[in-house]
C-alpha cells in the first residue's frame, strides 16, 4: 500500500484492497509465519470512546505479529479530561509508539490527527464518519464467501448513521457490485453518501422492504436499528420488526446467500439464523484479526 495512513475507505483503490486481503489470506493460512515479524514494535491505541471489540482486535493483531500495545487507559483518567487537544495527545503518543490507532467521537478527527504525526495512523472510527478497517474485514468476508465481482449485495437497517455501511458502500464502488439499500424512510443513506456513490458511477437502489430483492442477493449485510434514533417508541416498534430476519424468512433466499453483520446484534437477526449455512457474522468478526495483522504489517513495513 502506498498510503502512510488509513483514514477512509474512499482512499483505497482496488489494488490497495486486494493487497491487504491477499496478505490477510496468507496470514490466515499460516499465522506462525508472521509470529515474530514485528518484535519490538509498539502500537499506540487511542480510544476516546469505548469500543472493547475493535480495540481487542487491534491488540490481538499486534501481539500475534510479535509486537505490543500501549494505550491511554480509560478516558476519565487521561489528560483529555484536563482539556488537552487531540492534536497534542497524538503528538505526545507518537513519541512512544511506532503506529497509532485512533477511535474518536468527532467526524474528521482522524484526518486532523494524521496531519500532526509522522507515524502511520489508522482510523478506527471517527464519529459518524469512517471505519475503514471494518470495511476491509467485511470485504475479506465477502470475498471468501461470495467473491467481490458480479456481486449483488443488500445492505439493510440503519443506513443513515451507520459509518460501517457508508465505508463499505464506498469501497464496493471499486468492484462490479450492485448495491441495494433497504431501510425505513427515516434511516435512508445520507444524501451526501448517495451523491458520492453516484459520482463514482455506482449502481445504487433504495428499497423500503427486503422481500422484492432478497432472492437476487449474494450477500445481505444487516445493521442494527437503534431505538434511541426514534423520538417516539411507537414509531420504533412499527419499523423495527420489518427489518428483522429469521431462518424462515431466508427460505426465499438464494441457497448461497451470505448474511453478515458488524456486531453486536440485538434482535435484527434471530438466533435460529446462526444454525443456517447463511450465517457468516462470527467468522466476519474473527476475520478482523488477520485483516488487521495484514494492514499493520503493510503500514509499519516489513523491515524486521
Amino acid at each position, binding site marked *: 500500500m502506498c498510503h502512510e495512513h488509513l483514514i477512509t475507505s474512499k482512499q483505497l483503490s482496488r489494488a490497495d484492497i486486494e493487497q491487504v486481503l491477499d496478505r490477510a489470506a496468507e496470514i490466515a493460512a499460516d499465522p506462525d509465519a508472521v509470529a515474530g515479524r514485528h518484535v519490538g514494535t509498539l502500537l499506540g491505541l487511542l480510544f476516546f470512546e469505548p469500543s472493547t471489540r475493535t480495540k481487542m482486535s487491534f491488540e490481538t493483531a499486534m501481539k500475534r505479529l510479535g509486537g505490543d500495545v500501549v494505550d491511554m487507559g480509560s478516558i476519565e483518567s487521561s489528560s483529555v479530561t484536563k482539556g488537552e*487537544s*487531540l*492534536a497534542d495527545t497524538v503528538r505526545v503518543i507518537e513519541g512512544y509508539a511506532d503506529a497509532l490507532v485512533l477511535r*474518536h*467521537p*468527532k*467526524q*474528521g*478527527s482522524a*484526518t*486532523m490527527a494524521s*496531519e500532526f504525526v509522522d507515524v502511520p495512523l489508522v482510523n478506527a472510527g*471517527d*464519529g*459518524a*464518519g469512517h471505519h475503514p478497517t471494518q470495511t476491509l474485514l467485511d470485504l475479506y468476508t465477502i470475498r471468501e464467501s461470495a467473491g467481490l465481482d458480479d456481486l449483488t449485495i443488500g445492505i439493510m437497517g440503519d443506513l443513515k448513521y451507520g459509518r460501517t455501511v457508508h465505508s463499505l458502500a464506498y469501497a464496493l464502488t471499486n468492484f462490479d457490485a450492485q448495491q441495494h439499500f433497504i431501510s425505513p424512510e427515516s434511516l435512508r443513506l445520507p444524501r*451526501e453518501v448517495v*451523491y458520492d456513490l453516484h459520482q463514482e458511477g455506482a449502481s445504487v437502489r433504495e428499497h423500503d422492504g427486503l422481500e422484492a430483492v432478497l432472492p437476487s442477493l449474494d450477500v445481505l449485510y444487516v445493521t442494527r436499528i437503534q431505538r434511541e434514533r426514534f423520538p417516539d417508541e411507537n414509531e420504533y416498534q412499527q419499523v423495527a420488526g420489518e427489518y428483522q430476519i429469521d431462518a424462515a424468512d431466508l427460505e426465499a433466499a438464494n441457497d448461497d446467500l451470505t448474511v453478515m453483520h458488524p456486531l453486536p446484534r440485538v434482535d435484527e437477526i434471530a438466533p435460529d439464523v446462526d444454525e443456517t449455512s447463511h450465517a457468516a457474522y462470527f467468522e466476519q468478526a474473527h476475520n478482523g484479526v488477520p485483516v488487521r495483522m495484514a494492514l499493520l504489517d503493510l503500514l509499519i513495513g516489513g523491515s524486521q
Partner: protein
Amino acid sequence: MSADHELRVSKIRNGTVIDHVHGGQALNVLTILGIDGSEGEEVSVGINVPSDRLARKDIVKVEGRELSQDEVDVLSLIAPDATINIVREYDVVEKHRVERPAVVDGVLSCPNPNCITTDSEPVTSTFDVLDDGVRCAYCETIVREDIADLIDG
C-alpha cells in the same frame, strides 16, 4: 446604467470596486474580506441598486486597497457573478470576473457541531469547492445554501 445611478456610490481614487454582487450580499462580501472599517479603510456600499444585468445588485468600493487573487476567489462563493475593478487615479486599470477556487482555507466554519474543526483544535477549516456548494475537508459535510452564514465573522 445611467450616471444618476452610478452617483449613488461615490467614485474612488485608488482601490477596488466589486460590482454585480447579488442583492443583499454586500455586507457578507465585507465580512469575507475581513473589512469592518476598524483599520480606517474608506468603504462605500450600495445595496439593491438597480442593474441591467441583475435586477438588483450590490456594489462595494474599497478605497486604498487592491484585492488579491485569493480574496477575489473566495468572494466567488457568495458573489459568483461579481466583477472586480482595480482603480488607480480614478481609472479602471484592471477588470476581471471572479473564479471559483478549488479549495478555501480559513474562511468558513463547519456547520456540523460534531466536526473536529469546531473543537478547540489547532486546525484551519478547509472546504473543497463543488459545482454547487462547498464540502468540509474534515467531516465531509456538504453545504449548498446559505454559505454566507458560515463565514467567520
